[in-house]
């Protein structure tokens, strides 16, 4: 555990799909299936304490349709924002080209944004965000973390930085006040 005060969790959506719905299903299609997978993830997160950071891994999912992207990505994010007892952060892995359109579309539709690994080791900010948020996120992503004392210098658009933290696209350490790029906190997970 670092100064962020949490241990990231790795959730393999392919495994959740087979374990939760049925081992016969190999694709993330239909809203009913997506809802079941999302609920299984939410149950898993209930035991994660007051704060959690989850790597939602879609690498083993071959097909994800819009209905499932809405349930498993957008509604998972939206639901987590509504919790008063749990502060959940998410990074999505395995958002390769065939998944990207579905995920970007559902995020845009609900006015959400998410950090996603689009190629191995490459992270992007997907969904709806301002230019300022995108610039500050990219700078933070390049640095990995920024000390509280360096905020105005290295990340000059403080309003955008606050929005990134508020939208849980970056994480502020409750101990040191550092701002962490989410990708750096999950990249060791397999």
């Amino acid at each position: 555990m670092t100064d962020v005060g949490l241990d990231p969790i790795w959730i393999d959506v392919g495994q959740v799909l087979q374990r939760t719905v049925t081992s016969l299903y190999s694709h993330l299609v239909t809203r009913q299936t997506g809802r079941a997978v999302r609920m299984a993830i939410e149950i898993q997160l209930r035991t994660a304490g007051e704060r959690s950071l989850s790597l939602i891994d879609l690498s083993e999912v071959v097909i994800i349709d819009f209905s499932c992207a809405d349930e498993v990505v957008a509604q998972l994010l939206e639901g987590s924002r509504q919790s008063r007892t749990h502060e959940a952060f998410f990074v999505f892995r395995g958002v390769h080209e065939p998944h990207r359109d579905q995920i970007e579309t559902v995020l845009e539709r609900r006015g959400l944004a998410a950090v996603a690994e689009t190629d191995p080791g490459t992270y992007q900010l997907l969904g709806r965000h301002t230019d300022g948020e995108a610039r500050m996120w990219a700078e933070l992503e390049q640095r990995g973390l920024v000390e509280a004392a360096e905020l105005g210098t290295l990340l000059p658009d403080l309003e955008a930085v606050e929005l990134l933290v508020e939208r849980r696209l970056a994480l502020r350490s409750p101990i040191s006040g550092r701002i962490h790029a989410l990708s750096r906190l999950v990249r060791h997970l397999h």
Partner: protein
Amino acid sequence: MNVLPVPGSLDHQTIDAFFDLVAISKEGRTLFDARHLRWVDPNGMVGLLVAGTVAARKQGAMPRLELPESTDVLGYLSRMGFFEAAKGVFELDDPGRRGPARASDVLLEITPIAANVDVHGAIDRLQEKAGAILTSRLGYPASAVVQFSVILSEVCQNIIEHAEAPGWVAAQAYNWARRLGRYVVVISVMDVGRGFRGSLGDEHSARYGDRWGDTTALEAAFLHGLTRFPDSGRGQGIQQIRKQVRRWDGAITIRSGTARIGQVPEWDDTPPLVDGMQPFPGAQISIILPAKSGS
């Protein structure tokens, strides 16, 4: 007995007139006379099942289907799984054994869609051949099979979520040598449910007042992405299907009730909106995806 002649060519161009004929047929036993059927595409095959189901509702018993005389058509219907699907719809003679299925461009045999599990089954089966056919016949990249599967999944879910009645899906590749000079994939998804007007009525009809009808319901769903669900994240299926079909320069049309709405590319002379047809239950969706130019 009502005798309904099945046209010699039953496809996306002739299916509406055929449905109109079924819609105005009198009550009483119906015979679908398909003896002179020479050409049928997925819209024709799935449309026959829909027409038979509608006729059965009217007469309270299975209609009879007189089989095509053409052995080519019989063989094709057999390969597409038509006779298996028709067992619960028509009373018909044994079409006989058609011999082993030869290599064909069938992407998806006629598949009943009534529940979630059926969509999963259809998507699984699609993976067996779709990649090869989309690449070799349409010149699409290998990854297109994912987008194709997404389209099919969304369009099938339309049946489960809105129709509240069963339906069918089928897809096949053809060489439209004379019509377009290219291969196309034809996807047909049809149901006999409550249609768009019925599905959207409770939520949206008041806003439209006297103008509410099949045409306005189709426009609301097809052009504006309205659904019966209050959740703003819903209703993306048809919008996203339209977007992907446009990217591939394809055509999509939906008939529901008395109207058909469409998004048609330059190569297709289908009008974007047709109304004033005979009232017909459910929704009937046709998607045509052409090969990339030069393929």
